[in-house]
């Protein structure tokens, strides 16, 4: 197995979605190829760091404001749909 072969399988390896034989071949490659070991390890860290970063968390006050706006728009839509006279003005999805 070459380093290039290893890289092609890296995503399936990290996601643990491969057969036992391919996995064993990749792990054998990792035993002796330091560079692939480092790439594999730092790619795994990349995924973990993004997953655990709490990047773009929704603040509580904004969350409350957005939810109340959504509910009020849904209520408005429901009223328009249930009122046959208003049906022609019923908003379509944006």
């Amino acid at each position, binding site marked *: 197995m070459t380093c290039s072969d290893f890289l092609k399988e890296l*995503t399936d390896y990290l996601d643990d979605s491969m057969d036992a034989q391919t996995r064993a071949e990749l792990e054998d490659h990792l035993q002796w190829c330091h560079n692939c070991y480092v790439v594999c390890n*730092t*790619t795994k860290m990349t*995924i973990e760091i993004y997953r655990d970063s709490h990047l773009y968390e929704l603040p509580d006050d904004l969350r409350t404001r957005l*939810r109340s706006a959504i509910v009020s728009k849904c209520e408005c839509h429901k009223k328009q749909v249930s009122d046959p006279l208003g049906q022609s003005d019923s908003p379509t999805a*944006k």
Partner: protein
Amino acid sequence: MGTIQPKVEAAGDELTLVHAAKAGDIGAFEELVKRYDRNVFRIAQHITQNREDAEDVVQDAFLKAYQNLANFQEQSKFYTWLVRIAVNEALMRLRRRRPERMVSLDEDIKTEEDSMPREVADWSPNPEQLYNQGELKEILGKTIQGLPPSFRTVFVLRDVEGLSTEETADALDLSIPAVKSRLLRARLQLRERLNKYFKNRTGGDGKP
């Protein structure tokens, strides 16, 4: 070396809520909003890279979901269906903001920094020890912003939100090989770009 396991949201009584919402119970729909608003906001902000757009996407995606609940056939999870709507809304906003650049999930971009790692260095000490949380968030935000939208969308769905490859393919209307190919390149490009912040400064550089 250990593998990465996606986080899985409990399905719980989701279908009951969906059925109640379909029957017109807005309270039930609000429960679904509470369950997924954080996820939709995160996905929207990752794709649009703009706070105001992300706020609009959250509102528009949930409203659109509510308006089209009758069309939800329940063949996939409600969340996957919602993500599909949210991604489309987010891409639409991105296209509006950057009309000069083509924004599509179909493009299979080849970039100069594609697959082969150019710099190999271990990250030690851990990035969390090198930077405080604010600095780390800034680095991560700046780094992912540089990826093509089609790559960062696949990355955020698979690796941040924990959707399976199949669910990601379903939500983005892509084939499974296309999801895998974009995910590999997104992961490798992020790794390469983060290297300049996190690499071990005491040595160990080399090329595969």
